[in-house]
């Protein structure tokens, strides 16, 4: 178990665990920065538990599904191994990475901006560990997807229903132990992400189209589609939240928030082979970057249109200027995202989760947010 753990821990953290030290350093900076800003909000404990559990489960799922592990897994599974040691070594390697590097950042932020008792802090840590084990168990037993969904639903319900942190902590520990039992009975090969069956879909077009390429790319990744759908869902809900502010100054803030469509904005970083090919061929600034920019613009614009329609239903004061502002924000964010991808692609990442949560992701939205603040002053 120790050997397997070390293999994957080294892969995720670096040979000398240098990425771990870097992550802890960033967590401390985030904590210190937010804490010293004096910004404080009230968060109810069950919201904290829900946040930590769902976030950790999401990142763990992404990490388990990462194609980057396939080669290591293939070789390790070829060697004689002890099943339980393999499973727990592998899950703990990826789990430690998920909790310390990814969830650690979230915890640093929420611990800094709200007051928590030591029991609540311990319970949030338990939630993170439980989410790791439970996600791994559901992933390993994914042939019984229905049971996994019911289990996840039941645990989520317990977060809302059990208001007492002590009782909830006990339930979380019990749940984590159950997950460990399921894991101990799982098949180690279930963690090996085999190449999908190559069902060759025929396409009859003779001419190329970068647009068609990008639509196929988006349609082939369920999680990218889900992310885009979530952005569009957020576009419906944001006006309801902003409505409480009773000010049109909030309108551009929504445009800024809706520019965070990570997977669409990191196409070249996600696919180093594509980046290499695009740099190899002549004339790609025009041939590739312009259609790519228009594609991101389209995705942003759809979110903004939904947002404006929802705003019109809530407040009914969408003007032509607001529509132009939405288009301007969409266009700017698309141009900046593509420029970042062209000049500063992200390289050397370990899992897709690194990309999705890379600080660069926030560069464009932060700039948009600043612009939204300036625009809001004029509107307000």
């Amino acid at each position: 178990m120790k050997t397997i753990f070390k293999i994957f821990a080294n892969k995720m953290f670096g040979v000398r665990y240098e990425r771990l030290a870097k992550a802890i350093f960033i967590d401390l900076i985030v904590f210190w920065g937010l804490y010293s800003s004096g910004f404080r909000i009230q968060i109810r404990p069950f919201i904290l538990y829900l946040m930590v559990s769902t976030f950790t489960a999401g990142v763990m799922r992404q990490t388990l599904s990462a194609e980057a592990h396939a080669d290591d897994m293939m070789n390790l599974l070829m060697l004689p191994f002890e099943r339980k040691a393999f499973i727990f070594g592998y899950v703990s390697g990826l789990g430690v990475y998920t909790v310390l590097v990814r969830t650690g950042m979230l915890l640093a932020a929420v611990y800094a901006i709200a007051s928590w008792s030591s029991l609540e802090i311990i319970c949030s840590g338990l939630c993170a560990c439980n989410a790791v084990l439970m996600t791994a168990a559901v992933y390993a037993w994914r042939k019984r997807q229905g049971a996994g969904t019911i289990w996840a639903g039941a645990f989520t319900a317990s977060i809302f229903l059990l208001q007492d942190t002590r009782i909830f902590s006990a339930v979380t520990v019990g749940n984590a132990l159950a997950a460990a039992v399921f894991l101990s009975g799982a098949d180690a090969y279930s963690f090996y992400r085999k190449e999908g069956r190559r069902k060759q879909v025929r396409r009859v077009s003779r001419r190329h189209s970068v647009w068609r390429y990008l639509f196929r790319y988006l349609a082939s990744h369920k999680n990218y589609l889900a992310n885009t759908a979530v952005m569009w869902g957020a576009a419906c809900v944001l006006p309801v939240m902003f409505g409480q502010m009773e000010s049109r100054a909030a309108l551009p803030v929504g445009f800024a928030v809706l520019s965070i469509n990570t997977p669409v904005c990191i196409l070249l970083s996600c696919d180093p082979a594509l980046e290499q090919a695009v740099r190899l061929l002549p004339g790609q600034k025009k041939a590739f970057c312009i259609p790519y920019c228009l594609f991101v613009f389209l995705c942003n614009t759809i979110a903004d249109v939904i947002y404006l329609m929802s705003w019109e239903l809530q407040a009914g004061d969408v003007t032509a200027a607001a529509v132009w502002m939405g288009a301007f924000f969409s266009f700017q964010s698309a141009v900046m995202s593509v420029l970042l991808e062209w000049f500063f692609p992200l390289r050397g990442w370990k899992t897709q989760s690194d990309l999705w949560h890379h600080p660069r992701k926030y560069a464009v939205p932060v700039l948009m947010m600043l612009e939204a603040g300036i625009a809001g002053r004029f509107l307000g």
Partner: protein
Amino acid sequence: MGDSLLQIKNLRAWYQPDRAVLTDLSIKLREHEAVGLIGLNGAGKTTLLKTLSGIHEGFLADGVWMQGSPVKFRDRDFKKFRYTVFAEDHSFPYFTFREYLSYVFSAYGRKAQDAGPFIQGFHFEEYVDALMKDLSTGNRKKVFLITAFALKPELLLLDEPADGLDFQSTEYLYRQIAGYKEYGTVLFSSHILESITLTSDRVMVLEDGQIGKIFEDGSINAENIREALRYENDI
């Protein structure tokens, strides 16, 4: 074989600045020739081809000349002058072969040519409309090789072109490399002696980051090259 097509003087390339992979490598490619590049693992064959392709960033050279004029590897004109087939390439997974071919011809500003003879030669007819992500390693390699031979750039760079190909396709590939002189120059790396001896006008042995030995015409045979590799690497 004619004038100088590409000349590079004292090329130094590295992944870590203190550990150069190529050191003061000078190379001269003539027009209309097939040049084989051979060397042991880690000799720098792929690094050289990636540098020529403008993909590798860590390098310095005293000078690079294309047909006598100074040039940079990332210049648009130089890009249009060459095309590279990498040993492994997973790019454009959501294009079909036909779409990729059309995209590349458009990027080079050329009218699409009939790739039919190459498609037949590589036995690729069945896969022309399949998405590239659904192709096997060998078939994906064929996509890039067919594109390269159909495009006919003045300088064709091939990194381990025979890797992953079946027997028939390998034979066909050798014929294409040997016959490429009609259209331009091909520089290709290989571990397979046969691929070099059957096709090359010149063979360059890459060792210690430099071109150690060059064989031409009659001296190109497996025994000489094997001996050079043994000698250069103290085996």
